[in-house]
């Protein structure tokens, strides 16, 4: 009663109130078809801006490229995007704002915002992709509207260990002699792959140890002494971002351990920034990289290279692999929307989700392993090439290692 009374009183007092317009990358072509609104948040000023800015450019680049090439079934994409400086609160505010502005799908960025929005997107039925690759997000029972375009952290760690184990056996050692130290960011992001990786290692008789890397540490000598030298670790897997990873590699190098210990990085430190940061010490480091680095040529990079050239942008090498990462992530989302429209269905969250779940062996031109989603599994792929730093660039060090195929063979 009270509320109704107030509403009547207040409607008389309303002068105006409304949504404010947002920054948008609108269609560059004059098209009659109604634009499709897509909300996105990027970290352009926060702690992860070093990589997010390229991811953002890649995503916006893809939208512009797609609009210039006919859009989705003639509909241009209108991407409304905003910097959120890795603040979860800002991310939530922007999400509400963009969804109210008509965004049918959403592009997030980090672990913080992805986890915070997970419950909300499921209730709002908004398909969601981000650059956070926790395996839980690929499980529709846990996160029905999250889709992983990159290989999950768990799978990355397992594939990397598989490659390390193969080399180790080739060198004439036994699996039981192998000991992996997981140096990880002390956060949900860092610990995400550890349970699965340890389970896999235990199955193969490999010993493991967890080593948290404190935030803002200026050196890791103490951690190295205890967990690598004294515990006689033979391998190190780093799940952290590039700067602390490069510092760890330098510490290992200064202590003269790199000849005895094989170091490997999961995707957030296996990039060009690690090589810049660690210098010569980076030689020989292995990397589990779901999105092909710019030092290898892939057919799927061609459109991005041509578009950067056409718009007088920087080269793809300068834009790092995170540019193609953003580009491909948006391409997969666009494919889900294209399928929905091509099937004559209305562009709603549940329809896009259903159509994404029919995506089979979607070819990203070799930038990633082919992407397949099903109603039971939202992990786009479980495969990648392992790379290795040689002469200051990442080069391919293994064939495609596909866990899905390996599991099918086991059965």
């Amino acid at each position, binding site marked *: 009663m009270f509320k109704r009374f107030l509403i009547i009183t207040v409607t008389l007092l309303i002068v105006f109130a*409304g949504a404010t317009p947002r920054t948008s990358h609108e269609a560059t072509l004059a098209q009659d078809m109604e634009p499709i609104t897509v909300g996105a948040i990027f970290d*352009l000023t926060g702690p992860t801006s070093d990589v997010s800015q390229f991811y953002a450019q890649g995503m916006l680049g893809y939208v512009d490229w797609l609009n210039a090439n006919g859009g989705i079934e003639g509909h241009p994409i209108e991407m409304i995007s905003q910097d959120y400086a890795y603040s979860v609160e800002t991310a939530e505010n922007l999400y509400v704002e963009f969804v*109210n502005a008509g965004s049918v799908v959403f592009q997030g960025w980090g672990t913080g915002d992805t986890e915070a929005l997970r419950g909300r997107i499921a209730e709002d039925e908004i398909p969601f992709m981000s650059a956070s690759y926790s395996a839980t997000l690929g499980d529709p029972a846990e996160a029905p509207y999250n889709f992983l375009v990159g290989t999950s952290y768990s799978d990355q760690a397992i594939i990397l260990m598989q490659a390390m184990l193969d080399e180790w056996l080739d060198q004439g050692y036994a699996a039981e002699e192998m000991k992996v130290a997981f140096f990880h960011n002390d956060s949900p992001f860092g610990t995400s792959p550890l349970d699965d990786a340890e389970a896999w290692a235990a199955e193969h008789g490999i010993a493991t140890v967890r080593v948290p890397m404190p935030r803002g540490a200026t050196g890791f000598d103490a951690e190295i002494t205890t967990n690598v030298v004294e515990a006689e670790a033979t391998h190190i897997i780093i799940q952290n971002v590039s700067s602390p990873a490069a510092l760890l590699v330098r510490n290992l190098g200064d202590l003269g351990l790199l000849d005895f210990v094989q170091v490997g990085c999961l995707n957030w430190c296996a990039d060009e920034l690690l090589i810049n940061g660690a210098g010569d010490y980076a030689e020989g480091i292995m990397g589990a990289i779901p999105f092909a680095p710019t030092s290898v040529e892939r057919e799927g990079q061609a459109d991005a290279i041509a578009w950067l050239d056409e718009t007088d942008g920087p080269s793809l090498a300068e834009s790092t692999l995170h540019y193609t990462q953003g580009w491909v992530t948006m391409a997969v989302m666009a494919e889900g929307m294209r399928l929905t429209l091509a099937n004559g269905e209305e562009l709603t969250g549940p329809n896009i989700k259903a159509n994404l779940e029919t995506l089979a062996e979607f070819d990203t031109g070799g930038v990633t392993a082919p992407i397949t989603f099903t109603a039971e599994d939202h992990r786009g792929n479980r495969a990648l090439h392992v790379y290795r730093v040689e002469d200051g660039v990442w080069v391919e060090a293994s064939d495609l290692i596909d866990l899905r195929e390996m599991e099918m063979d086991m059965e």
Partner: protein
Amino acid sequence: MMATTQCGVFHESYRSDMQLRPTTWQRLRVVVVFAFIIILPFVASAQNLRIANTVVIAAIGAIGLNILVGYTGQISLGQGAFLAVGAYSTGLLMHYYELPWPIALVLGALITAMFGAVFGIPSLRLKGLYLAVATLAAQQIVGWFVRNWDPIDGTKADGAARELSMPRALFFGDKLNDSEFAFYVVGMIALVIVAVVATNLFRTHIGRAFVAIRDQDIAAEVMGVNVFQYKLVAFATSSFFVGLAGGLTAVHSTNISFERFTIDVSIEYLAMIIIGGLGSISGSIYGAAFVKLLPEILRDVGLWIADQGWLASGQLDQYLPFAEDAAFGLAIILTLIFEPEGIVKLWSDLKAYFRLWPFSY
């Protein structure tokens, strides 16, 4: 013209002396403020109401911090930790004991108060920067705990990512983490209660003891104030309100993770009370509103500029985030240079100007 401020008001009874707003015009102003508070949710769009809700939460937290920093003079960098304790204890109580959210909120705030008192113990020996570093320890310890403590994982089936899934909090059938209107009602009631309680706190012997400690702790002790006891009470009271703000953050969300309560948050809250006015309840609210609204306003200005065609939209994406950071820094510097007492002083200067207007002398 009747005075809108207390000028030439003489009290004839203790009752009138105790009033917070003794003049009719002052009371009228309170009515206007309440009218605004009540009308706002009906006219604001969902996203604007959401921003209003973040201001409400921040205002409660800022009042809490101001009790400690502005009134008692104990610098704290542990705000983020206290918010986290409030948020996680509220969430865990709701999850494991299935307590109704209002009870969980109050218990969460009480737990935070106890936690705050424990971290207030170093304040007996430490002052200024040294105390700030001690409270920084609270920030680090709590940060480690919420990242590694097992019961927090237990809130969901698979513990791969450590964050707390919030159970539903219903308010007359509306979910607090979904309906901005429902949350606004709850949050605003909490803010009004907190503001009135905090204002009255400084009219009691406890509040005056806080101020005495801030102004000169040795003199306060000579006058018979038990400095250590009152410092702990200040930490506990402050943490209670901060914990309440944390709990409200939790019921406003579907998931909470440690990334919401980092050291940046502590610094943001310090900025709020510096800009708003140290040692002022209304200043805390102004400061919270300023800090939370500034980015939104800057964004709208930026978009307006883009609409004028002075900047391509791509350039806007590039520069706006940095302009926001710069404007934020500038606001703090300008406040410190031109009005160290904050927004609340600007407001009282304005009132002083109009007190005898148009015949000021």
